[in-house]
């Protein structure tokens, strides 16, 4: 059993203090300790992107970090993306473009896309495809996901 470490993390605007085992992965902290199960686990080894979150403003795979590394950081998960019940354009466009089949990749896709749109507001289709190539979707063939991100980009630009 590894020893416990205290951490303080701001998640979706709320500050949490917890004692975690030093080997606990960030994804397990979010899901099992904080109960934020919207972040999904598809491989636990950095290959699928289902666990993508925003960590201090950039997209990271939360299965590739320890919870202790998040001490003092600010995290946004899919649960924190909509503000006061108002959905983010990405969330709306994913629904509108039927970019959701089983939905298991959706949280990770939206989080990685959120980061892309922030960095490259004028992003084009090819760049979107490259930008999300670390996130796997087995259901959609990516066609509608790319469309959704593109329309969200147009909306955000306006």
């Amino acid at each position, binding site marked *: 059993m590894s020893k416990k470490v205290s951490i303080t993390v701001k998640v979706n605007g709320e500050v949490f203090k917890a004692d975690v085992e030093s080997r606990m992965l960030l994804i397990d902290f979010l899901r099992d300790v904080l109960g934020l199960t919207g972040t999904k686990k*598809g491989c636990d080894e950095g290959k*699928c992107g289902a666990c993508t979150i925003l960590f201090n403003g950039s997209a990271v795979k939360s299965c590739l970090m320890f919870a202790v590394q998040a001490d003092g950081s600010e995290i946004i998960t899919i649960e924190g993306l909509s503000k006061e019940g108002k959905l983010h354009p990405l969330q709306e466009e994913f629904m509108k473009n039927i970019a959701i*089949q*089983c*939905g298991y990749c959706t949280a990770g896709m939206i989080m990685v896309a959120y980061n892309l749109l922030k960095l490259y507001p004028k992003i084009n289709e090819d760049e979107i495809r490259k930008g999300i190539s670390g*996130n796997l979707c087995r259901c959609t*063939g*990516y066609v*509608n996901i790319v469309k959704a991100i593109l329309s969200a980009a147009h909306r955000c630009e306006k």
Partner: protein
Amino acid sequence: MSNKIEDWRKRERDYPIVTGKALYTNDINLPNMLYCTILGSNYAHARIKSINVNKALEIPGVINIITGAELMDKINPLPTNSDYSKLGWHWRIPKVYPLAIDKVRFVGEPIAAIVATNSYIAEDALEMIDVEYEPLPVVVNPEKAMEKDAPLLYEEWGDNIQAYIKFIHGDIEKSFSKADKVLRVQLKEQRYSGFPIEPRCCVADYDERRNELRVWLPNQTPYQSRRYIASVLNMPESHVKVIVPNVGGGFGNRIVPYKEVIPCILSLILKKPIKWFESRRENFLSQTHQRDLKWDVEAAFKNDGRILSIRGRFIMDYGVEGTNRDAGSPAIVPAVRSIPSAYKLEAIQIDAYGVVTNKAPYGAYRGYGKDKGNRLIERVLNIAAREFNLSPEEIRFKNFIQPNEFPYRQITGYLYDSGNYPKVLKRALQLLNIEYWREQQRLLRERNRYIGIGLAFMVEPAGASIPYSIFTGIESAKVSLFTDGSIHVYSNTIDIGQHSKVAIVSVVAENLGVKPEDIKVIMGDSDIVGLGPWSSRGVIYGISAVVKATKALKLKILKVAAKILNENFENLYIKDGVIYSKSNSEKQISIRDLANRVYFFPGPQMTLTQDMLEKGETTLEAIASWFSPTTIKELSSVYTTFCCGADAAVIEVDLETGKVKVLKYVAVHDVGKIIDLASVEAQVQGGIAQGIGGVLFEELIYNEDGQLLTTTFTDYLMPTAIDIPEIEIDHIETPSPVTETGAKGMGEGPIIIPPEVIISAVEDALAPFKVRISETPLKPERIWRLLKCVT
């Protein structure tokens, strides 16, 4: 699809997903829950000499460890999912326990299971279990496994043939004697599978007070899975309940919960809730695999390009087995019977072998077996086109079953319901603008760029009802009117990503005359009778049953309304949940009001007809079941609808590296009447992506020792967004005369076509070098080698 249905889709189906609230199995946490890990074999073939768990048990937090030998008397072996020996075929069923007893036969075969207070500790314990093996000779190549002195997986069999079927349809000798030309075609397809992004997972909770085991798992068929779990646990089915939360993709990979029975056993032993969440490596090693086959056939042709017949040999590599851990073995049947596809053949004769080797078990993956025969005939036709100097479309137009020939009895027994194959292919050629690309090809070749055009066709037999298997085809639906005016639909056509919920709401709203927002869909529960989505059967069985039940409920409602409103029954209609008289606008009553009057104030005697009261029909609900009419008379016609499709693509090959790039991809499908266009198109896109993945990238590679070398997504080469092109889609609608809505099953069709489209496009691109392809996947290395050989 109306705006209201779109609103329903967003609000009820997708909103919980985009906000992270949707519940998947791994999101379920119960009080006092413990965690399970499963130790898999390191050897592909070995005897287990001893298993020492003492050190592992000493780890603080480890609660229990079980091995196969300990369990043997407490449980039953895994039940079989198909038994075709009853049809007189060579069909062997091994005795398989959830945890190996004395021998392991593939790397990853479960040996022991650990329960601990958290998943980290349960994983630590895996490392501390000592297993002493006595290695045995390994066989991973099915042709070697068929040799006389091959190592035997099941000594008691005397050989490694799990299934052998000689398929004879038509007079093969006579047909070949008429041939002008005989072509030999070989085709080998690699091992791959679905691998949904959600790994396998199970939460099992045995409640001693109620003597009930509740099991949550991502599954395509909870009614059937309950039978499976109860059988292993030796419990009455009525004491087991399987609940399916959101499912992170199915693709046929979630039909039989063979490994999930282990946490169930543990929960029963410990009387505590247990969670098992599989690692991705474990998933690659032990989830059931598919494809892995080899055709070696001769095809007889007339000089004008008409195909007469096909004969030869077919080998499927089942890995360790295909009958108990999943239902993969039966795929050998549609693999052969789908060969004639859209064409008029006189005869086929195939010796088909299902062979066991030291690899993971064989299961179902989108396409199941239908993909295999389709791909063979398309390969044969594309090769023949070249031989007879015909274009790929010309040879198909010559051989197609014609629109006026339906219903068409295919030589292999299938009864095709409807179709217009020439129309679908013509539309695909237009959509691609094939003449333009042929011209481009000529121009680009002069500049040393090699683009190729490929096309293929398919007919998808869908909606199976297969005797002597878990795929018999039962399905029910219940539709109820509640006193709040809501309509509750119970159906096990589970939404595994294909938006079946939306299709259900759409047909209920339309057939009953109610608002989508008043409809609630209940699914994914073993208490609902029905087998669920596989074999593209959702719109065939599930939706047909829902429509039948909806119509029966409507009849009841109208009968009651006729009495309450004192109006002629035929003179009533329902719109937006209100029953109106066609002639007297004063006469109207909402279904909500009607339900309240029947159930409570004043009650049945004052509202129901005499006939209803006498029959005891006092509730406003209807149950219906539906069965495939085409499968009733002939056992060989086990499929119900036959959708079709034509895909065409333009690709470019980089001669330096052998890399294939898809430049344009078009697909035209005829899925009968379309219920929900958006989800049909989404199915086509996703299926094509999987087909492209299968032909260009994905591969489960075993070495000679039976070690799987591809145990991550990146080694396996799961396609990413840069690997899949934009896909252009169009539809033709030829309704099915056999389903309630005219819709045809279509979920598997899209994965069937792309491999041959790409193979033929690559051959076309490399025509100047006479490259011939007989094996996939077409990774750059393979193409580069092929080019080296011929240049």
